[in-house]
């Protein structure tokens, strides 16, 4: 890069200002380190293949619930994020349908719910702070924020 020395100086000064006025919060560094302890090595990762927030031309401030689809080779998991804050809950369907337990993982705790004969499941409130990930048998979904 053939950089203008003035540019280099201004950029360095901006970087200092950012470090002073908008640093990475220390708590977030701990969260990032903690994320590693959540990784699963004995499950297939179901990747996010549909996200209503990414797909639609949403009107700003639209309050339609967010819909997510995760796809693994053996299973599809669809999730709707309803409510907000402490009242946030997840409603979803697994296919193929099977009455099996589903672990809802958050940063704070794991909540286990059971799908019904049609593969439907629903959590109560009190999931803890996001992001979230679901584990269903040998499939685990990507993390998603709410």
């Amino acid at each position: 890069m053939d950089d203008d020395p003035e540019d280099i100086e201004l950029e360095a000064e901006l970087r200092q200002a950012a470090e002073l006025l908008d640093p990475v919060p220390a708590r977030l560094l701990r969260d990032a380190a903690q994320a590693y302890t959540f990784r699963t090595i004995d499950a297939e990762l179901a990747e996010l293949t549909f996200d209503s927030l990414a797909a639609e031309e949403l009107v700003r401030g639209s309050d339609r619930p967010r819909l997510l689809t995760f796809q693994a080779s053996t299973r599809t998991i669809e999730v709707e994020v309803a409510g907000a804050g402490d009242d946030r809950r997840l409603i979803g369907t697994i296919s193929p349908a099977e009455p099996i337990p589903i672990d809802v993982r958050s940063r704070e705790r794991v909540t286990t719910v059971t799908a019904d004969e049609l593969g439907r499941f629903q959590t109560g409130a009190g999931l803890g702070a996001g992001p979230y990930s679901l584990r269903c048998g040998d499939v685990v979904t990507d993390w998603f924020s709410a």
Partner: protein
Amino acid sequence: MRVPSGKAAVRTDDTGALVRAAARGDSEAWEALVGRFSGLVWSVARARGLGAAEAEDVFQTAWFRLAEHIGRIKDPEQVGAWLATTARNESLKVLRTGQRATPTSDMDMLTPGIDEESPEQAVLESEEAALKRERARRLWQTFQELPERCRELLRALIASPPPSYAEIAVAFDMPIGSIGPTRARCLKQLRELLAERGITGRPGHS
């Protein structure tokens, strides 16, 4: 964090080696990645004016995703670009829900903790340090007035430690060759704004 016995921690500048070591279970390698790329992820999360709470969600989601993907990253050398892209995509999703920080709340962020400062501390802070802080605050305030495209690119470029142009090019979906010229144009614009507001030179240089 302790490394399990019998496993040597990777101490290297080689990003790809850190990713591969973390994928094998080396938690020190993971922490090295956190140290190296947290600044970039945070900068990208804040680049489009997301409020602190939304930017925190974006930051956490990017790192939790990486933890699950660590053994599946196609190009371990470019994990910084992977993280930055994930953070940018997530922040664009949040923007679509209309949860952008208002200018007011951004201004609030410019004077963090000012009320917590005791008179004793205020006296202890040297005049020079106070000038420096005031200058940083005015610089930062002027920076917020740049057009969105400039603010976004520069905010990411001034992450600590500084990201590579390759990482920025991938995250912002820009040709790598256009980053340098865009950066120069944006810095020029900032310099003009600073001049208009009578903010020139470094403290002590003016």
